[in-house]
């Protein structure tokens, strides 16, 4: 059957059906089904979250000051961002302000998450969609060294360095132990890097693995531990005592200097390893510009990183805020999280129950009641689904909308927004990236563009981290050591009823929490997370989601080896534990592919 969706995509589900399950490399399960035509071009896509998240139900009746600790554990990857969103929601509901130092420390922790998450995503979750490890075995060490030195001053680039790594890799492959490199589609025709570039990428995969633990230390210094650092309604649970006597574990000069030195090394790593690798990969893949989907049409960013404490206005937020619809970059629309007409979630194709499913609900009115039922055209059984029926309910992810519109969120959305607003800190790096590749701005609307935006943002975040660290140190030196405001800590100071929202930009996109408090307890709590915005199923009008849209019209070299699907979906950095919760434990293999 052929249809055109209201958001402008042509679907045809008559061809061969391919099922890829599960798709995320870590944390959670996403399943994608596509139909390909006789030329193996994707003509229909169905994405489904196969797990149910019940955190909203768990939070009901609990102390709102504890909510951050529960929501933070939705995910072990974007660790901290849910907690930050949660404390902001509670502070908004109860009218609590935070000190300037707390704002700086929160920003450093959030930016640190960006640097860590983007780096780890690129090298450990996404690189193998672009990099063929087996091809690296054929690389010439001397040529590899020359290539590496031509793109970066990074010192680990001698012929012997690459030779030794290659020897270890060969030993590995010969012994049949592929470890982190198992389950690849090695030799797939969609891989385009020469052996030398592949060997560089493998070396940096390992170096990044080694370096990421340093970045995480920043979160441990300010948050007490990583993953899942500690947070506090009213500030940060992080006393400052530069004299280094008195309170045990307080932040002193030695800790501050440690953080500053890690930030400097992070900037160096991102600029000398990550960015040159991105440019190198892009130069070989600049003709593979599939995977854009919704990004060229409608994107949204809530904005984040307030320059000034307690000021969440567009002016104060260093990451851009707004909505772009139908590709109109000249008109960035404002967002109001409290307006019941703006952000709404629909469940007509989701395994949830609303009293009236023709209408969306604003998160303050949100309901999380599971309703697992399969459509008449489903093949298989409830416990062993062979093929989903996208005409009925088919996902544990709800369908969120902004004024009824489907939007994409994430690094690309943020950079498109910054570009549209003409902000130099976003526009210039994009132009600098595209120019030597001779690519137009519209080339960004692709899986490669999403991957590029993430790398550029990683560099931006590393520098902003440095900015807020300097600001914090200067403020402390001027005598400001307050990190928490406990005026309204006691419940007696709260109104009987209150409601609020908090928002952040998680590394993978716009994140919002909405809370209603009654008699000092949580009455309702709703999280609308980035992978919900990107991974949602169809809505009432038949619009398809960002994941689904991104796959349409992509040619596949071999439907049995869906590398192209993985590459595009991974470019969103999907995090399904966050969108949904565990339902099916059958994740024995990284990817199972079934062609029907």
């Amino acid at each position, binding site marked *: 059957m052929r249809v055109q969706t209201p958001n402008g995509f042509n679907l045809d589900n008559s061809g061969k059906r391919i099922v890829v399950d599960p798709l995320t490399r*870590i944390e959670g399960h996403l399943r994608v089904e596509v139909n390909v035509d006789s030329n193996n071009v994707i003509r229909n896509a169905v994405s489904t979250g196969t797990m149910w998240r019940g955190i909203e139900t768990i939070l009901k*009746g609990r102390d709102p000051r504890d909510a951050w600790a529960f929501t933070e554990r939705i995910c072990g990857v974007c660790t901290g961002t849910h907690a930050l969103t949660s404390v902001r929601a509670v502070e908004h509901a109860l009218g609590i302000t935070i000190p300037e130092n707390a704002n700086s420390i929160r920003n450093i922790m959030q930016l640190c998450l960006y640097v860590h998450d983007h780096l780890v995503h690129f090298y450990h979750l996404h690189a193998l969609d672009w990099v063929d490890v087996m091809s690296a075995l054929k690389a010439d060490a001397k040529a590899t060294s020359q290539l590496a030195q031509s793109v970066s001053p990074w010192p680990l680039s001698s012929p012997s360095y690459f030779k030794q790594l290659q020897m270890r890799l060969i030993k590995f492959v010969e012994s049949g132990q592929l470890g982190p490199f198992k389950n690849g589609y090695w030799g797939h025709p969609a891989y385009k890097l020469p052996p030398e570039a592949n060997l560089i990428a493998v070396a940096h995969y390992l170096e990044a693995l080694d370096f990421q633990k340093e970045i995480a230390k920043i979160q441990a210094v300010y948050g007490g531990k990583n993953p899942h650092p500690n947070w506090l309604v009213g500030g940060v649970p992080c006393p400052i005592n530069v004299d280094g006597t008195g309170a045990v574990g307080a932040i002193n000069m030695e800790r501050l200097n440690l953080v500053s030195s890690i930030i400097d090394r992070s900037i160096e790593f991102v600029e000398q390893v990550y960015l040159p690798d991105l440019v190198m990969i892009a130069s070989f893949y600049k003709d593979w510009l599939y995977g854009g989907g919704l990004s060229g049409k409608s994107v949204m960013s809530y904005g984040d990183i307030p320059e000034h404490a307690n000021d969440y206005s567009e002016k104060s937020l260093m990451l851009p805020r707004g909505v772009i619809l139908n590709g109109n970059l000249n008109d960035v629309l404002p967002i109001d999280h409290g307006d019941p007409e703006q952000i709404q979630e629909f469940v007509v194709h989701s395994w949830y129950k609303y009293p009236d499913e023709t209408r969306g609900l604003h998160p303050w009115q949100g309901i999380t009641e599971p309703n697992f039922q399969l459509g008449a055209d489903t093949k298989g059984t409830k416990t062993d689904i062979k093929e989903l029926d996208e005409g009925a309910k088919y996902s544990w992810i709800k369908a969120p909308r902004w004024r009824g519109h489907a939007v994409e969120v994430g690094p690309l959305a943020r950079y498109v927004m910054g570009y549209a607003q003409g902000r130099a800190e976003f526009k210039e790096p994009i132009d600098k990236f595209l120019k030597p590749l001779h690519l137009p701005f519209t080339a960004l609307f692709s899986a490669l563009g999403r991957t590029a935006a993430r790398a550029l943002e990683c560099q931006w975040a590393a520098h902003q981290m440095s900015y807020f660290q300097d600001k914090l140190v200067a403020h402390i030196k001027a005598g400001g050591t307050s990190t928490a405001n406990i005026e309204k800590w006691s419940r007696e100071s709260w109104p009987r009823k209150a409601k609020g929202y908090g928002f952040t930009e998680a590394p993978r996109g716009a994140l919002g929490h909405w809370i209603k408090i009654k008699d000092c307890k949580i009455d309702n709590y709703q999280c609308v997370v980035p992978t919900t915005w990107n991974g949602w199923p169809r809505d009432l009008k038949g619009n398809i989601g960002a994941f689904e849209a991104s796959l349409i019209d992509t040619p596949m070299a071999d439907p049995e080896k869906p590398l192209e699907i993985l590459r595009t979906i991974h470019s969103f950095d999907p995090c399904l534990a966050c969108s949904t919760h565990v339902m099916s434990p059958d*994740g024995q293999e990284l990817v199972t592919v079934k062609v029907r």
Partner: protein
Amino acid sequence: MNSAAKGKAPVSSIETTKRILVLGVGNVLWADEGFGVRAVDEFYCRYSVPGNVTVVDGGTRGLYLLSYIEETDCLIVFDAIEYSLKPGQLRLLRNEEVPRFTGAKKMSLHQTGLQDVLSAADLLGRFPREMALIGCQPLNLEDWCGPLTSPVRAQIGPAIDLACQLLKQWGSEAQLRRVPLRNSGNLPADVDHATSERKARRG
């Protein structure tokens, strides 16, 4: 959780003292998949260790455990293993016997597991000289949020005894605590039905 390893050895003895890591991995949300974590927690509650020994609850951290592994000379790992043994049967695997695929079933939230960490450490050229895996065959992995089953729970004591023997062989004997640690807070977000989850439900 980091043990007494924080108390640093004198500088002169650093080169001669083996750095030992006692690691428990697994997912406590999947019943017997949590064996490794439960075992290492119980070990830490019962025993104190010398300064060169670090005790770590590795949970489902996957590749992020690399920093611990690569700094280790001798490694002991508690984990659930799929060896088609009788449920609750223990097996000690040494050095090359430690398989690429540990973890009874690849369903921990992080799909990268111990084998990925070990191979990454190997590729980086920083691999433990000696390695021992204390594995237990699970009975039930499907009981979402359930506790360990009794045959597996019964092996925690014997598994800890094996670890103590290894530490002794490596010249770093664990000492039985006079008073075992209880409610040490090592698993503050514990979902073991016997403790916190029931408390929360009573409200």
